[in-house]
């Protein structure tokens, strides 16, 4: 039975999206991405090093024909910078699917939501398909969906913190009300937390640091691959109700 993820009209088998930052080198990036099973990878847009143009490039290791490159606006603190970055990204890659994040504070990297909303409106008007990083507020999430974002991506915890999902109730409400995919983006630290995001009903999980900063990133990538699948299956299965008292698993009839 197929259970695919559809984002902006395109189907994916994997429900794990991985970042490509913070790895030791491009070889490790490539192996970790392969182990994760991800079909979408986030990438950043930065200036070419003019003094050393021959240095290795990400696209030499990850083939944009094989993976969907999702350009992000990480590091942008104004909507204007984010929009400018994504216009360049669209020209570099030739595709419209992007990840918008407008940050509001250096220390927490929490999103600046008013700037995010304005930037999303501009991008959508220009034909971009916007997957949007946001806080875990259901009202804000609804606003982003209503203006036409193709996926809502609330944070589980601050970017790179590995604290796990701090507000499962908020995430669950966002999932219940949304008519577009909801992804937990940021904050997942280990496999059980990725599974938890999926058990809450999220359509996918996006992570970078949890894999890249594990002692063995390639093994952690595999763990996350499995965790997302397990969490999805558990969600679709419908968990048993919680009970206050024990309920024996072996029949009582026929006891000696």
């Amino acid at each position, binding site marked *: 039975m197929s259970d695919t993820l559809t984002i902006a009209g395109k189907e994916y088998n994997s429900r794990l999206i991985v970042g*490509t930052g913070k790895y030791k080198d491009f070889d490790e990036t490539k192996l970790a991405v392969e182990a994760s099973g991800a079909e979408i990878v986030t990438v950043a847009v930065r200036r070419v090093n*003019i003094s050393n*143009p021959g240095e290795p490039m990400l696209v030499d290791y990850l083939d944009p024909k094989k993976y969907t490159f999702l350009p992000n606006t990480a590091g942008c603190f104004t909507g204007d910078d984010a929009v400018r970055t994504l216009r360049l990204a669209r020209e*570099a890659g030739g595709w419209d699917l992007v990840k918008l994040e407008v940050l509001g504070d250096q220390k927490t990297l929490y999103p600046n939501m008013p700037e995010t909303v304005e930037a999303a409106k501009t991008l959508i008007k220009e034909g971009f398909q916007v997957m949007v990083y946001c806080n875990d507020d259901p009202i804000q999430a609804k606003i982003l969906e209503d203006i036409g974002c193709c996926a809502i991506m609330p944070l589980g915890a601050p970017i790179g913190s590995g604290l796990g999902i701090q507000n499962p109730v908020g995430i669950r409400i966002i999932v219940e009300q949304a008519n577009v995919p909801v992804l937990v983006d940021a904050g997942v630290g280990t496999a059980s937390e990725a599974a938890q995001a999926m058990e809450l009903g999220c359509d996918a999980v996006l992570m970078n640091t949890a894999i890249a900063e594990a002692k063995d990133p390639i093994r952690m990538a595999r763990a996350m691959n499995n965790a997302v699948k397990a969490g999805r299956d558990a969600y679709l299965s419908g968990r048993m109700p919680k009970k206050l008292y024990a309920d024996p698993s072996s029949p009582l009839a026929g006891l000696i």
Partner: protein
Amino acid sequence: MMINVTINGDTHSLKEALPLLELLSKFEIEHDKVAIEHNREIVPKTTFGDVTVGDGDNLEIVHFIGGG
């Protein structure tokens, strides 16, 4: 007379105004792997050959790198 062009925030002196594609090959940049802003306007890839870079111009040349 030399001209000055700002590329990725740094000033570079060039002998003369020249087509963007020529400038890229001069700096050994593979044109199919980058995107370019010329005086804050996106340059579509298909028009790299048509744009001339002149004195006082500002270029941003970017590519994809690892990121989360």
